[in-house]
């Protein structure tokens, strides 16, 4: 294939235009240009935690999609499906969770300002994170109350298929949300130790918003299907 070797020159690398021009057989091509710069092929790489949170969100979406399809299939062919009214406290919990999304967004902005040396919110940068943490715990407590209310009505995990799905969906969401709370506690700790990275903060906030959106989806699903 190759016949000529140039002496090792200044380290160079191909640029994108050349890559395209010779595409189609990337495995066998020599792509060292003359006078190219290394900057040419550096792909944009976001911080791993930013990528990781999207990847994780994708996996969680798959899990809930699987459970949703299970609900649809199970209900579709069932003669034993019994509808029941969702406990009204769930709507209050929803408001609490929505509020927590607002507070964590405020927290993100304040902490970001703090991290970039802004004077605003320089004191107590973690305050809104604490508020979000508390709202998250209130939400979990509210979900527990909803379960107790169903218990009081005699609706247990195995009573009806609809109640089974209610407990499975809400427990799975609560577990994931608890993971978000642990992540937030970690962010607060890192903030106090002055080792918090911006990407970690952003990833945690994104996850929390995702928990919010996921809950809205689940509420609509449970309201419509149960």
């Amino acid at each position: 294939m190759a016949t000529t070797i140039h002496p090792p020159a200044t380290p160079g690398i191909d640029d994108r235009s050349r890559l395209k021009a010779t595409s189609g057989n990337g495995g066998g091509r020599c792509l060292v240009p003359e006078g190219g710069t290394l900057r040419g092929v550096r792909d944009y790489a976001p911080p791993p935690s930013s990528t990781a949170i999207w990847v994780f969100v994708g996996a969680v979406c798959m899990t809930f999609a699987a459970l949703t399809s299970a609900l649809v299939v199970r209900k579709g062919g069932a003669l034993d499906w019994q509808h029941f009214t969702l406990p009204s406290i769930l709507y209050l919990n929803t408001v609490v969770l929505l509020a927590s999304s607002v507070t964590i967004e405020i927290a993100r902005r304040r902490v970001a300002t703090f991290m970039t040396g802004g004077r605003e919110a320089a004191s107590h940068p973690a305050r809104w994170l604490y508020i979000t943490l508390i709202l998250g715990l209130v939400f979990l407590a509210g979900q527990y109350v909803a379960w107790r209310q169903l218990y009081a009505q005699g609706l247990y995990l195995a009573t009806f298929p609809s109640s089974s799905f209610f407990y499975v969906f809400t427990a799975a969401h609560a577990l994931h949300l608890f993971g978000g709370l642990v992540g937030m506690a970690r962010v607060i700790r890192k903030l106090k130790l002055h080792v918090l990275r911006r990407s970690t903060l952003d990833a945690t906030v994104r996850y929390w918003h995702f928990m919010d959106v996921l809950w809205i989806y689940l509420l609509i699903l449970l309201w419509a299907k149960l």
Partner: protein
Amino acid sequence: MHDMSAQAHAAHHAPTGFIRKYVFSLDHKVIGKQYYGLAFFAAIIGMILSWIMRVHLGWTNFAIPGLHLLSKNGAPGDILTPEYYLQLMTMHGTIMVFFVLTTAPFAAFGNFFLPIQVGAEDMPFPRFNMMSFWVTFVSFLVMIAAFFVGDGPSLAGWTQYAPLSAVGPAAGPGQGMGEVLWASSIAIFCVGQLLGSLNFITTTLDMRTQGMSLWRMPLTTWAWFITSVMGLTAFAVLMPACILLVLDHVAGTSFFVPSNLVINDQLQPHSGGSTLLWQHLFWFFGHPEVYIAIVPAMGIVSHILMANIRRPLLSHRALIYSMGAIAVLSYMVYGHHMFVSGMNPISSIAFSFPTLVITIPATIIVLIWLGSLYGSKIRLNSACLFSLGMISMFISGGVSGFFLAQPSLDIMLHATYFVVGHFHFVMAVAAMFGIFAGTYFWFPKMYGRMMNETLGKIHFILTFIGAYCIFMPFHYLGMAGNVRRYQAFTDDYLQPLIPVHRFITIAAVATGAVQAIFLYNFIHSRFWGKPAPENPWEATSLEWSTTSPPPFDNFGGKLPVVYHDPYQYGVEGPAGDYVMQTDPTQIQLESDEA
């Protein structure tokens, strides 16, 4: 990229204590070796189980000395009961699919080599990586525990079809505690693989070194990346399915058990569950799982072949696109496992079409391999031989897939040994050959010593012949109507086939025994093998530009810079007919001259 890599490195320095260095290690290389060790051990268990089953199939009343020690009730007088045969079959399939074929080519080699091949010092989340292995290890212990509790492991097969898997102890031995352990183990396994996939994806996307664009990644890295995307989506579906299965057992729910089901004269206390629901959830995972096993082997074989034919494949990109197409299509074909499940026949046609379509990218990959081999001056070392063997197995198993993809033929063949022959060739043995090829190729880099080539070649020849002697007759048995999952063949029409089973049994025991050569070669070379140079195969990718074995931070404190695509073979370089990715030497192609 460098900043993040440095951060990952800074997160953990080279450990000195034994526990941190070898047990709860954060180093991706140690974790890779741990995965390999787990797969090695699991493969031995899985193989012994297959021996027991094969001996029983050939000589049903033959007493295997000591078998009663495994289970007094399952093997009274050292002879398997029909139920215990099914229990061993379930464990053979489960252990092999999850703890060998998923663990070795993907988790073991991927953990060790993916960060090195992209020029990173480690994965971005080393603690998740460590958890990934130990969670998998716990999952393995839970699975093995089923041998020692209650009445043994589950007998429902590795596919665990409901309602058999969901009704509890009334369905037979192992369907109580054994079944709960099975479903719990697999749910735990899913968590481990999700953590691993998360690391693989982020390493590939975010940790590449300077100059390492996506298209400059070796085919192995691409294969692991594609596999981790499949793993992430597939295991995320299997996990809730297993949790629902556990709930049917321990909480009295009715997700998978239908109404009015009477088993062993007992009316089951369930109502309205959907048996097909389990199949949908399982096969949505199960078919991508086939590719989770084979795609890394495809990458490994391509990587090794190029180093031995000393030229690049016909098309690097077509192979990557084909692996990607397989990954996408693998989610659309899962219904072909359910042609005879009572599913709507229109659905069968809908699933049949993508099943036939998925053979196109698979065929493209095979044609690229064969076309690249044509006219090449090949170096026939052990790694190369096993790569060729993998191609052979993949083609043999793939061809029988054409028949099974058609619902009308599948109705006749699905419950016969034809299917057993098909999936063992195309998935199990092909992936095993990929694992062997990877071991012979990367052993010098992993352990700093060379394996014995003569023993490697003997191992290949005997294993290659043995594999064909075992699995090719399965197709013949299937065409003759020999049903699978039976523990003995007492029907008249099956009697003439028993000699074929005996031949297969002898071949299986002999081929299994041949693996002792590999075991000896591995252990002996590990401690007493010839010290390995940095680049014994004159290969080009980044793992060969560092010492054997690599230092804790992979590249001795300085990240490499990449100047070339991964496979610059057949060119004139400073050290021979290749130019490494890190070599700034400029190469001029004939096409450029023209």
